[in-house]
């Protein structure tokens, strides 16, 4: 206990003297976040310094082993680091698909060479990854994917197309699901490949979202050569890795709305709607906000509990589906309340006053939360079958 208290004290002191003031407020969303990568241009010196200092300590990925660029912290130490960062308002120094998704999968399934090659670059924000899972014909039914990889001796030749590939045009490398045995049952002919987006034959076409942003692409592969050393795990056993990676993606998406929240919704609403007799002038909205705040609070505790259960070896492997489903539905609810509290002022799409409609765009963007990473309906299917053991139709 006292060791942890010492760790807490030292961590706080370190954060206080090392986190630049500009990095002590919540990120304003995807465009205000440090994603890293070969093409990355830092938005400020503070952003660069904060990344460098945190990467130096291994705290961009505090729970990874030190040999791969991580901080080597225990579960309890990571919890303390996050609490102290939250208390000081320190934002995350680096967000990336490498941290959230590929890293955990490589730690579990990667070869030693693959871990040494890729993990430190993720930890330092040098290489940015994108996720090549979904295809035009394969969304919820991901295992029906058709992108082919054919064995050509010391490499594979990849052909096909992925869709909704977030940041494909900004990423350096892709982790990609490909079909390596078209004759096997659909889950048993899939492999997990890594390759450079600058490889010959890779091209991307941006797609615009309803929020006006264009964070994702259709991605095409035309005779792309991938060295065999870039196969993760065994040939045709990629589905297991794919699912494991998805559990990490789902944990992350589920928690997204809660970690970015800096002030209470009730306070925000009090400013825009106004108070009468000390309570929100719109009493129906007030009740909805209070109910939301209660559920959000409880959900944050659920996330904490899921971590504690994992540490105690009591977590069901499908718990990430619960977190994903609950967290994203909650986040959508929150954004609806934010819009309701803002009234017509919240509807401006352009102009400096609203920072080009950042709020209305965030509201629209939130609708993807219950789609990306597997839809809410798919998560409920998983909970029903894997946790509750309900029968297949």
């Amino acid at each position: 206990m006292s060791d942890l208290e010492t760790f807490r004290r030292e961590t706080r002191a370190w954060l206080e003297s090392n986190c630049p003031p500009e990095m002590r407020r919540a990120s304003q969303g995807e465009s205000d976040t440090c994603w890293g990568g070969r093409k990355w241009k830092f938005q400020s010196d503070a952003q660069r310094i904060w990344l460098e200092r945190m990467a130096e300590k291994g705290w961009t990925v505090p729970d990874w082993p030190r040999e791969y660029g991580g901080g080597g912290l225990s579960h309890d130490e990571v919890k303390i680091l996050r609490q102290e960062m939250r208390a000081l308002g320190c934002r995350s120094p680096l967000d990336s698909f490498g941290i959230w998704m590929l890293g955990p999968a490589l730690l579990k399934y990667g070869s030693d060479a693959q871990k040494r090659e890729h993990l430190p670059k993720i930890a330092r924000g040098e290489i940015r990854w994108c996720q090549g899972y979904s295809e035009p014909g394969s969304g919820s039914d991901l295992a029906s994917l058709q992108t082919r990889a054919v064995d050509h001796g010391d490499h594979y030749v990849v052909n096909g197309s992925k869709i909704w590939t977030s940041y494909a045009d900004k990423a350096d490398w892709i982790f990609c699901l490909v079909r390596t045995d078209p004759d096997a049952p659909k889950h048993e002919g899939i492999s997990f490949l890594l390759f450079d987006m600058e490889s010959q034959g890779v091209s991307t076409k941006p797609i615009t979202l309803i929020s006006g942003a264009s964070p994702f692409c259709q991605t095409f592969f035309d005779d792309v050569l991938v060295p065999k050393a870039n196969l993760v795990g065994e040939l045709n056993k990629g589905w297991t890795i794919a699912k494991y990676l998805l559990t990490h993606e789902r944990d992350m998406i589920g928690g997204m709305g809660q970690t970015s929240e800096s002030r209470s919704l009730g306070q925000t609403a009090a400013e825009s709607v106004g108070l009468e007799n000390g309570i929100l002038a719109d009493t129906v909205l007030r009740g909805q906000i209070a109910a939301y705040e209660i559920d959000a609070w409880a959900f944050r505790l659920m996330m904490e509990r899921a971590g504690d259960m994992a540490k105690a070896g009591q977590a069901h492997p499908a718990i990430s589906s619960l977190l994903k489903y609950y967290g994203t539905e909650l986040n959508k609810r929150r954004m609806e309340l934010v819009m309701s509290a803002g009234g017509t002022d919240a509807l401006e799409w352009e102009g400096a006053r609203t920072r080009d409609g950042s709020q209305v765009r965030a509201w629209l963007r939130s609708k993807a939360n219950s789609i990306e990473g597997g839809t809410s309906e798919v998560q409920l299917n998983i909970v029903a079958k894997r946790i509750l053991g309900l029968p297949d139709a």
Partner: protein
Amino acid sequence: MSLVLTSEQTMLRDSTRSLLVKSAPISHLRRLRDERDPVGFSRPLWKEFAALGLPGILVPQQYGGMGLGHVEAGIVMEELGHTLAPSPFLSTAVLAATAIARGENEAQKQEYLERIVAGDLIATVAIDETGKHRPEKIALSAARSENGFVLNGAKTMVLDGHVADLLIVAARTAGTPGEIRGITLFLVNGGSGGPRAERTVMVDSHNAARLTFDNLKVPGSAVLGTVDGGWTLLDGVLNAGRAATAAEMAGASEEAFARTVAYLKERRQFGRLIGEFQALQHRAAHLYCELEVTRAAILKAQQALDESFDKAGPIVAMAKARAGKSATLAVQEGVQMHGGIGMTDEFDIGLFMKRVRVMQELFGDSNFHADRLARLGHY
């Protein structure tokens, strides 16, 4: 603190569970109900509780208790929720024991706590006066007279109030209803020398009473805590009760849910198990998520009471609000997914609905707590 039970806590859960499964399964509640048992719970069963030390779970060890916390009390409450067993655990071991143990009066502790631990004293709190829980609206008056006070007024929904040996009565000694200043707690004997008690038979077949105080004289030594300054203690006792009630709801809703999921795997229609229908799968999965999230909230609230009793109010409010909502959903879905049989008295699922409805109201329903939190959040 970790949000999983320790091995000691798991053992407590298991021993309580085996006692209840053996001595107080749901048939126990049915028997008490159908025989119109005048006490409404089993005194021999309460003695069995005492043999395990359960009535003294929150009583400090120096008074013979187990000196454990609200997490442990919640574990027992949760198990009671599973079998719906009526018992004075909430009234006596949680509410009254908390009030007396935190009342800072050595003589009172000496007099009552050991008897609570032994299972020899049934004690309760008398707080609510109206159908909706509004503790600051307490109006029952306690006027000074000679060396003591004279009590006038009425209380409702007093748990086990028809058989309690000791009543802890929240009365107004100053101020007006709506003010938290001016509330005082009194220790009043039940039975013949006490207030008039009318047993109220409630929907859940558990035990409550209305009490009427008609110029009832009590000595000055009956004051628990300080005169006019009883609110803090009262609020703390209520928070203990809220967390405990939330835990009982968690137990009841999880039992109802487990029975419902089992039914989905057993009942056939249209030539298949009804659990194959995705409409039902999704509702069951959603409910599971709600219950798990609530479980985290309740455990945190119990830990908050144990770590910092006086500051736990908001988190307890959150947990009670959550528990009320998710338990209500659990029992409603439970009855619906059982179809016609779910509506029959013979089948148990409806009993969970009845009990949860009572627990939802007790010590403030979800709306009450949501309103409280909104006020604390200045909106």
